[in-house]
């Protein structure tokens, strides 16, 4: 579905923000991209929706070479929700924000209405109907930005830091929505610093550092590798910490697993 071959990109000559990236993501995968500030995560995902074109190498999305197509034609297939929602939101009201792309794509009015209403209820924004996006709280703006992209149903969905400003309940809702989209066959990429979100909900993780991919695998395996995490300025998920601290070997990132193994270790202690 998405393939990067030897992708290199520099904003300024001599400094590679992406440095020979090779990465393959299959249709219907749910993948997290993590790494230190400035690692190149945002630069990478901008290549996948065609906003940036590689200086070297090749990006293929849904069978299309990103250099051969326009951003507009990719945009319908690849939805990117920006790190800062204020780069994306511009309409006078929440409803106009949500329907903008749908109108542009020429969808029939009743379909537009159906999708807009779905998004407002799915993201718990109904009490703000008719309001300007700029009069929402930080977390609400973030959800609106996500909703407006989801509305037009892209094949590939990329979320740059979707959990910032979200409380735990919203994170749980977001995770179940991502899983649902995933089951519908959508490919979902999540860029995030939230190690808890990754370890709790996302099966595969790609670790970037200094413009390179330094690890790629199952979250349960990658997120307990201290060397890798340290290189990318990450910290292990809390359950991995708890595993190490309490001597559980191998460490686990699953709550039920950690609790069951500890209960066994302390034997009769649990009344």
């Amino acid at each position, binding site marked *: 579905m998405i393939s990067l071959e030897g992708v290199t990109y520099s*904003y300024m000559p001599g400094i590679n923000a992406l440095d020979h990236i090779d990465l393959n993501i299959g249709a219907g995968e749910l993948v997290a991209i993590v*790494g*230190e*500030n*400035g*690692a190149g995560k*945002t630069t990478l995902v901008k290549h996948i929706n065609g906003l940036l074109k590689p200086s070297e190498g090749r990006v293929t999305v849904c069978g299309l070479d990103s250099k051969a197509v326009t951003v507009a034609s990719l945009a319908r297939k690849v939805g990117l929700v920006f*790190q*800062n929602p*204020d780069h994306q939101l511009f309409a006078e009201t929440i409803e106009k924000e949500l329907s903008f792309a749908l109108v542009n794509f020429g969808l029939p009015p009743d379909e537009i209405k159906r999708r807009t209403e779905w998004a407002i209820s799915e993201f718990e924004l109904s*009490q703000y109907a008719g*309001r*300007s996006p700029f*009069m*929402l*709280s*930080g*977390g*609400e703006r973030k*959800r609106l930005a996500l909703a407006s992209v989801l509305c037009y149903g892209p094949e590939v969905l990329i979320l740059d*830091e979707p959990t*910032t*400003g*979200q*409380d*735990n*309940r*919203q*994170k*749980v809702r977001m995770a179940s929505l991502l899983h649902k989209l995933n089951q519908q066959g959508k490919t979902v990429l999540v860029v995030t*610093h*939230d*190690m*808890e979100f990754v370890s709790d909900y996302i099966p595969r993780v790609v670790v970037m550092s200094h413009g390179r991919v330094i690890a790629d695998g199952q979250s349960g395996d990658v997120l307990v590798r201290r060397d890798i995490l340290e290189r*990318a*300025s*990450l*910290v292990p*998920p*809390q*359950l991995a*910490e*708890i595993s*190490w*601290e*309490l*001597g559980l070997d191998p460490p686990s990132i699953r*709550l039920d697993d*950690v*609790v069951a193994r*500890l*209960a066994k*270790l*302390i*034997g009769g*202690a*649990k*009344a």
Partner: protein
Amino acid sequence: MVTRLAIIEVESLSYTYAESTQPSLIDINFKADSGEFIVISGPSGCGKTTFCRTINGLIPNSYGGKFSGRVVVDGLVTTERPVFELAQRVGLVFQNPENELFCTTVEREVAFGPENLALPREEIIMRVDEALDIVGISHLRDKSPDELSGGEQQKVAIAALLTMKPKVLVLDEPTANLDPMSAKSVLNVLVDLNSVGVTILLVEHRLEMVSHLADRCVIFDSGKIVLDGAPQNVLYSDTAANLGIGVPKAVLVAKALRQRPELERWMPLTPRDLLKLLRGDLR
């Protein structure tokens, strides 16, 4: 027992935004002693940012709206003072710092505050160097803020605030775009500032990162304060569990392993505390 001076006093504060019909804050009573480290949390849209804006006077001075009650910061009643005067006592880091950055270089951005205070040049240079160093962005000083990554911009905003040396620091999700190590180092900076007497109000959803650093946790819900107390008491409460705020995993593990009477004596917030609790049983 040491009695400390209240540096922030909020009395019967209610507030409704000009464009809104529903109040965003409802009858808030709150006090912070000088030198306290307070973490503020609660569901999205519950009023945390609005509360922060009332502490440095942006509300109601710049926002208008319907304001009742009283906010007193370091002896100044916020409605009676201009925002720039309050800004020297209360520094506010916004949720989306990028929107606040407007200078051509990182250095100018960070120097902007002290330059406006008309401080001597050497003092400005010293503060700027120190602030850039503390947040680890000295190497970015000549870059333009819009050529930085999201996390780098957030660090610039924090550095800019540090140069003002305010008595009270209000930070609205300051680590939201930071990688975990940078987040830790910013939090360490806050702990250090706090240890020399700066009062800290920190809004954060990820309580696992911050609750063990705080003297107090205050939880908002629907515009009201619903919990206010020691982090342990707040995080082990049923109210917190029901609100669905991000309780640390160590709390969840402890709750799964222990019965209530035992928990009341020993409420771990971190993996290390959890080990202490279970050490006897583990060998």
